């Protein structure tokens, strides 16, 4: 113990210099600010990611403000059946029941985002717990979990979601639950593989040699090194899950008309695809664009989260 104290006193502190607490706090604050700034630069360097982010922010804003900016009630028939865009006072036309497509797109964004983000977030959280525990501690828990995952893997994701949604009452929450369950194995497997990968890195052994326990290793070594690939994967999945959710609605297992949903809108329009293609095209294009945006954002996130890709 005496050895420590002597070395400490070798470096005399200048009074009031680095000692003041606010200064330390300010320096730490500046450091985190710099890290954030560098991460943002790395992200913004990718034009597609930047564009996608702006586009998505607009979509989110529109969805939030739907009650205020929608020209009509999305459930009310306000124009003639399948009115062409620009006629009858409806900018993007009307659907087969004469409802305003623009208003329905605005309102449908809420459900689409909920169905895309909700299950992905839920599945990621569950996967983080399951995959980490299985990958880090191994043993029988790992064996059992991975066999269950293998079984779930035997069914295609969409098929599994259809089965689960099929036995439940149709609705938004059914869609979210079905997709969450079907999605979890995919992310859990990634989390587990990444955990195994990080676990055998020399710096984890070095940390153990430095006296770190399991909790410290998981929180400071495994988790931070695992989050980037998982986050990127999950972000790209959001778009895909929106499409799956739309698919469920398209099949009539999800959101029921007259409630506005992009997938349902595509489904309703398919009967008049030849005569009034706009009924299908507008919601279809929006689904594709939003799903693509999440992919681009995932790419950008990968750059932003990796300290090696952030330049100084």
């Amino acid at each position, binding site marked *: 113990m005496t*050895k*420590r104290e002597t*070395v*400490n006193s070798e*470096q005399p*502190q200048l009074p009031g210099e*680095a000692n003041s*607490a606010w200064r*330390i706090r300010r320096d730490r604050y500046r*450091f985190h600010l*710099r890290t954030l700034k560098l991460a943002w630069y790395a992200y913004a360097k990718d034009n597609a990611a930047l564009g996608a982010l702006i586009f998505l922010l607009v979509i989110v804003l529109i969805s939030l403000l739907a009650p205020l900016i929608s020209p009509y009630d999305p459930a009310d028939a306000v124009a003639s059946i399948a009115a062409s865009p620009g006629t009858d006072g409806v900018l993007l036309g009307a659907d087969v029941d004469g409802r305003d497509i623009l208003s329905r797109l605005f309102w449908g964004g809420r459900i689409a985002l909920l169905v895309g983000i909700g299950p992905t977030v839920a599945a990621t959280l569950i996967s983080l717990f399951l995959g980490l525990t299985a990958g880090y501690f191994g043993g029988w828990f790992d064996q059992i979990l991975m066999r269950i995952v293998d079984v779930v893997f035997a069914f295609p994701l969409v098929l599994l979601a259809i089965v689960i949604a099929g036995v439940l009452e149709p609705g938004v929450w059914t869609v979210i639950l079905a997709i969450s369950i079907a999605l979890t194995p995919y992310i859990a497997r990634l989390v587990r593989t990444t955990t195994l990968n990080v676990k055998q*890195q*020399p*710096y984890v*052994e*070095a*940390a*153990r*040699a*430095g*006296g*770190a*326990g399991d909790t*410290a290793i998981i929180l*400071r*070594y495994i988790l*931070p*090194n695992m989050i980037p690939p998982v986050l990127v994967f999950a972000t790209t999945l959001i778009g895909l899950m929106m499409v799956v959710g739309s698919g469920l609605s398209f099949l009539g297992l999800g959101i029921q008309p007259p409630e506005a949903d992009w997938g349902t809108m595509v489904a309703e329009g398919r009967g008049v695809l030849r005569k009034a293609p706009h009924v299908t095209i507008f919601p279809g294009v929006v689904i594709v664009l939003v799903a693509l945006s999440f992919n681009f954002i995932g790419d950008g996130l990968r750059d932003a989260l990796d*300290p*090696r890709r952030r330049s*100084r």
Partner: protein
Amino acid sequence: MVEPILQVEGLKTHFKLREGILKAVDGISFSLAPDEVLCIVGESGSGKSVTAQSILRLIDPPGQIVEGHIRYRDKDLLKLSEREMEKIRGDRIGIIFQDPMTSLNPVFTIGEQIAEGLREHLNLGKKEAQDRAVDLLRSVGIPNPEDRYQDYPHHFSGGMRQRVLIAAAIACEPDILIADEPTTALDVTIQAQILKLLADVQRRLSSALILITHDLGVVASMADRVLVMYAGEMVEYGDVKTIFEQPKHPYTIGLMNSVIRLDDQRGSELRSIPGTPLVPINPPPGCSFRSRCNAAHALCETEKSRAHSVAGGHLVSCHLMQSDSSQAGSA
């Protein structure tokens, strides 16, 4: 004789593999005085690193320490709980690994990584730990330590990263420092700097140092005592002068003949040891070096030699020591 700070007795670390039991370390004993430099030498796969990892109990399944005692001060490290062991690792016994490129966590700044150990072991506050970490970085020769504190590992070269790792290993001023081939992954020019730094650090902290290497030049310049390992077993153990000037075991003699010596006047030929090292999976009975040994005889086929003490503190595991020590010296 000073009370040794670390005493390893009959350490056996085996790995249960599908092919059989790999006896990576098979009956190693040595003791370490509080400010001694012990060099463990041997070919690749002779069990040097496993010995180091066993001391810190960092052996993962299928490996297992099956026998022996590792006494640190008055504690037997093999009997401590995992919790107690965590308190010793990094605090009382620090280790520096071979590959500095991958031994640092890529997602945290190097300063944070050094400060982390300080906060954990010494219960320092954020600010004190930060100040100490900066001091440590300065003491291992990192320029502008205040600025470099906030840099990530990938901003550093290999030599600089090894300096950072040394700083992390000595952060809590350990009694024992283990360096597992600390210069293998570095440029030759940097190797000398790192070794000098290690020697300086060891002297400044007056801690014991276990240096694992296969560079006999390093051994000659740094070691107090030398442990020569072959196929997981101790071959010869003694102080550095004895090992270099009067090696007794045929393997040690072979090692000495296989390096160029600047003080060699006779211009004798550089000889390598014929054959390849035995992989000790289900080893046959007898001496594990006998197939490469030119002094092997009938007894070597059937029986392992015990360690013979030929002089004060000079141990040699070879049957030749038993029958005729003068003959063995010239073998």
